């Protein structure tokens, strides 16, 4: 059983003079799916970027730990799988080459059976040798799931996971979320889609943290 925990202490983020959110105190544990909701501009993407260590908080702390051992920020990428609309894969490489390059940079061996399985799961098996610049927006979104899952991370963060996907694609994503949850992973979904939020065990509504200075 994976014992992954995120502790958020008094988190505050300000862009310029605009307060995004303040005073977030949470504890997130593996084996659960957490939703992050709120209207446009409420800071959903900012919140997941802060958790991922991609940006720094104005105040407060986000601490990651696995089996009680703290994960330093420099190593966080080893435990994290991330999907988001603003994540861009390399256009000049094929879908498969993108994944191979990423695995080599991570310093991990490539399990081609698992790669094939994931490409099959997201319905990209026939197109994995095509350059990404020839992919549709939906196919690029599917490729991001292979990118997020290929190193079998303990923490999965999906920002608007079903954007650009057709009904079949959405069903695949929900199936993947269910499977990963059963493996005991910690999953965070930031979305406004009701169907996406329905996959979550509990929801963090960011509007509750948008208090005045």
């Amino acid at each position, binding site marked *: 059983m994976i014992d992954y925990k995120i502790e958020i202490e008094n988190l505050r983020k300000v862009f310029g003079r605009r307060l995004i959110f303040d005073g977030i105190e949470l504890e997130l544990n593996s084996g659960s799916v957490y939703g992050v909701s709120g209207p446009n501009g409420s800071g959903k993407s900012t919140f997941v970027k802060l958790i*991922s260590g*991609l*940006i*720094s908080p104005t105040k407060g702390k986000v601490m990651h730990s696995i089996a009680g051992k703290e994960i330093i920020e*420099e*190593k966080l*990428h080893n435990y*994290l799988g*991330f999907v*988001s609309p*603003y*994540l*861009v*894969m*390399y*256009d*000049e*490489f094929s879908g498969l080459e993108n994944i191979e*390059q*990423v695995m*080599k*940079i*991570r*310093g991990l061996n490539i399990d081609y059976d698992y790669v094939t399985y994931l490409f099959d799961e997201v319905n990209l098996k026939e197109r994995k040798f095509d350059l990404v610049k020839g992919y549709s927006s939906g196919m690029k979104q599917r490729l991001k799931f292979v*990118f997020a899952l290929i190193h079998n991370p303990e923490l999965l963060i999906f920002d608007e996971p079903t954007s650009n996907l057709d009904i079949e694609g959405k069903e695949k994503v929900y199936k993947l979320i269910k499977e990963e949850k059963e493996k005991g992973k910690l999953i965070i979904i930031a979305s406004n889609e009701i169907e996406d939020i329905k996959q979550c065990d509990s929801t963090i509504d960011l509007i509750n943290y948008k208090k005045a200075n």
Partner: protein
Amino acid sequence: MKAIALFNKDWQSELRTRYAINALAMFILVTISVILFSIGSEKITPYLTGGLLWVVIFFSAMSGLSRAFVSEEERGTTMTLQLVASPSTIFSGKLTFNLLLVFLMNIAITILFILLFESFTVQNYSLFLISFFFGNIGIAISSTIIAAIISKASSKGTLYPVLSFPILLPLILTLLELTKFAMDGDTVEKAFVEIAVLISYDVIMGTASYLLFDFIWKD
């Protein structure tokens, strides 16, 4: 190994997109052609040719070496990198890529100078090669960290030479002095102080860049 994998990714990407190589090659050809046309049939001194060599190298570096980070930022792949590697891996990988580009670029420029400028005559080759080697490392390190700083700015094209000039000036001045020594046929012992300055510059810039990169890379 991870840094080498990142370097390989950048190199394969460069071979497919020709993002930096084409810009560098065109810049080198145009600059040297302009110098040749402006000189015409006049004779120029060896010192002036040595100076021109480093002027061409400086401006060529300005035209192509920022691409290591700027291309990632422009294509929106910066976050992809952040999600797969630590800042130290990214800096080391990008530095290796820039080192290769600097050496390729400067070897090409030097060969063209030897072929096209009669007055470019080096008496002490070992001194010139020492200066060339450590000079290239200095240019690559400085260009890499400056590229990381400017990659998130809106006016990258202007900011890069402006920021580079004060940082690369001590390096270029030392290299000019060493090139003069090499052209005069002075010994390595005579140029010891300049070589020590050159190596110190590389060590200081390398250490400072490695330590600062973490702060530059995030946000």
